[in-house]
């Protein structure tokens, strides 16, 4: 009689702990996933702001850079590509292919923008234009905000991925379909700097 009761007690307690343990792991994974998705929302807002600014910038520059049609069109094309990549990434933040596409599109956009700024160097009138100055100022500030938000996003993706991979969470991560999340990487500023145009 005594052993029977003890056996039941042990089964009870072990089973109970196991259930709570799994619930705890599941909930922790959900929390971390929500956190990085929320963090992406911050990037999204700033990227959209950036995509809204660029057409204005191009519109302002157009009057001065009539001979640089190609550069301007490249900027607009890159901006459109990045905007659509962002729409896709925003639907499913952390999705590997969407994030890679966004990184690529963002790098391309930064590259073309860099070229535009380099070209603009040669046009003192354009550089002195107040609209242009405020737009560029705004763009820099937005880029700072993007990189700050990106840092927060990457931090939370790292926390999520780590939790996903360590034992014993990894057993349940697979079971409950917690896919790994992708970082949002943009190449270092030195590399993406457009080559200075020499005349």
């Amino acid at each position, binding site marked *: 009689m005594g052993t029977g009761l003890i056996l*039941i007690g042990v089964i009870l307690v072990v089973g*109970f702990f196991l259930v709570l343990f799994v619930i705890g792991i599941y*909930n922790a994974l959900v929390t971390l996933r*929500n956190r990085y998705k929320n963090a992406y929302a911050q990037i999204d807002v700033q990227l959209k702001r950036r995509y809204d600014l660029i057409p204005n910038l191009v519109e302002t520059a157009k009057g001065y850079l009539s001979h640089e049609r190609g550069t301007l069109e490249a900027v607009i094309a890159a901006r459109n590509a990045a905007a659509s990549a962002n729409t896709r990434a925003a639907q499913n933040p952390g999705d590997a292919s969407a994030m890679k596409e966004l990184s690529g599109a963002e790098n391309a956009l930064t590259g073309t923008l860099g070229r535009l700024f380099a070209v603009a160097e040669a046009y003192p009138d354009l550089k002195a234009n107040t609209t242009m100055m405020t737009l560029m100022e705004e763009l820099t500030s937005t880029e700072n905000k993007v990189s700050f938000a990106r840092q927060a996003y990457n931090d939370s993706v790292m926390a999520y991925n780590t939790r996903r991979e360590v034992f014993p969470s990894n057993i349940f991560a697979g079971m409950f379909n917690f896919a790994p999340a992708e970082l949002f990487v943009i190449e270092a500023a030195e590399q993406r700097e457009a080559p200075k145009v020499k005349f």
Partner: protein
Amino acid sequence: MDFFERQDKARRKTKLLVFYFIVAICLLILASYAAVFAIFGRREVIDSFGESSFTLWQPDLFLWTTLGTLIVIGIGSAFKTAELSKGGSAVAQMLDGRLINSNATEANERKLLNVVEEMAIASGIPVPQVYLLENEAGINAFAAGHSTGDAAIGVTRGGMQMLSRDQLQGVIGHEFSHILNGDMRLNLRLMGLIFGILCLTVVGRVLIRTRGKKNPLPLLGLALIVIGFVGVFFGRLIQAAVSRQREFLADAASVQFTRNPDGLAGALKKIGGLESGSKLESAHAQEASHLFFANGLRSSISGAMATHPPLEERILALDPSFDGEFPEVAPHVAQPPPIPPVEPRRTQPPPLPPPLPIFPRAEAMGAGIIGTVVSAQALLPDIGQPTTRHLQYAADLRKSLPESLKSAAREPLGASALIYALLLSNEQSAREKQLADLATATSDPIVDETLTVWPETQNVTMQMKIPLVDLALPALRQLSPAQFHEFRAAVRALVESDRQIDLFEYMLQKIVLRHLEPNFVHAPKPVTQYYDLKPLAADCGVLLSAMAYAGQEDPAQVEAAFARGAQLLSRIAKTEIPFLPKADCDLPRLDNALGRLALSVPQIKKNVLNACAETVAADGLLQGSEAELLRAIADSLDCPIPPFIPSASV
């Protein structure tokens, strides 16, 4: 009944609640024993004389059952409570809420955020996180969290889209009353306890799966499931009884805030007229049903099990002319007409807010500046109960804040920069040193951003600073843990590099860090430790001395100001409140004192705040800047004072 009495009452109610639960758990243990006995027990006992007798009492069996039941319920409750200790956001995420970005631009989301922001400024608490329950088409809302720092408000998609601004304001006012009355903590504790009882059924389910010949375990499992559900039934009964009462209270409070019964009544009528009403889809709805604005459960249970009073009754309390006929509300109003960018206001457009006088900084306080004044005793009764005047004032204040600062406060980088800028010194040399320290603690873009924001913060008046900080908090909660640690280090560097920091700026950074830390650092919940003023006499001495030095220049006046506050407290504490020399009122001591005072019961806090008010207003009048200092101190004691309204004349 003032704020402190309501806090006291909430505390007493929690104790009563715990008592009910203990009774329920005792009954559950008895029931479990009966089940275990029926399955395993020997009814025949052979006593020492070799005679067998019939018994229902087996001490060892009872001991094991009691132990088992207590372990299950105890650990279950502890588990859930630990999960909920992450604050309101944990509850919101459990219910599939999506955090609304503080810089959202979508018209409906913006409207909701604006309403919440105004209400927060009006009651003097940080703006809570706002979650949207996207999958819920009904009209409902909830508030959850432990303190004002980790509070979250959730609104269903239906609620956000279908309610007008006034109605939304009524609903949000109702939720704020839950936040201010200490209902949230009570609610979370309830959820934890009920989950513990529910765990009995979880164990039952585990047992029912076991196999084997002559295995009695499935039978025990079945019994446990039944017992668990009966237990949960009684748990819900308690839950419902507590909840119903609180809902009426919150309705009344909401009307008191907004002074517009039509808004709240309109929202309730819309719920009645809508087919999906206030029903919730989430699987966790039942667990959290008592958090919600209106009954969220599918079946419309009434009577003892209902967590909410009937709609009709609630409407009648607000609108006696209600005839019981709900207006027809079409559910597909889902896409309301676009809201004009300028929000419609309830009353005629207010005259531009009176230009807020710029007050000199604290070191110049008490130099006989003519400002708006109010008697100290007029300020304190408002604690925790903003009125319609405060709401109007908050709306105007929010409008008059510079647009650039408002938009900075809404995203993480800008919000950090804003806080740094508010902490920068006015003196060139000190500021340069601070900026150098900031640059070492953070990175260049942040310093740049701070310098962009700084000129604008120079025009910010004293009265705007606390609201600005409150507005910036939702964005700051979005920092990643690494960014938060950097932020905290930078804030401390700014405070320490400026040896001349004034008390108000010090309190400002304390507000920021105090409300942010629960989101990033896991600290044990503070437990009330002081029920008597006597052991806190030294701490009161530090606080009152510091306030006296902040307000007065002349040593004699300092002492006189201190004495005014001290005599009030020494009478209650029945001991001397020590006056400290200026050198002893340093920040670590003050910090320590405030920390200890925050752990006292509400009535002590009330007396301490009264004494503080007496001290800063030693000249009989409370100036704007002094009132703000008092608000900051009160905030660190968890007593939100609504903004001081400069209406009284000199």
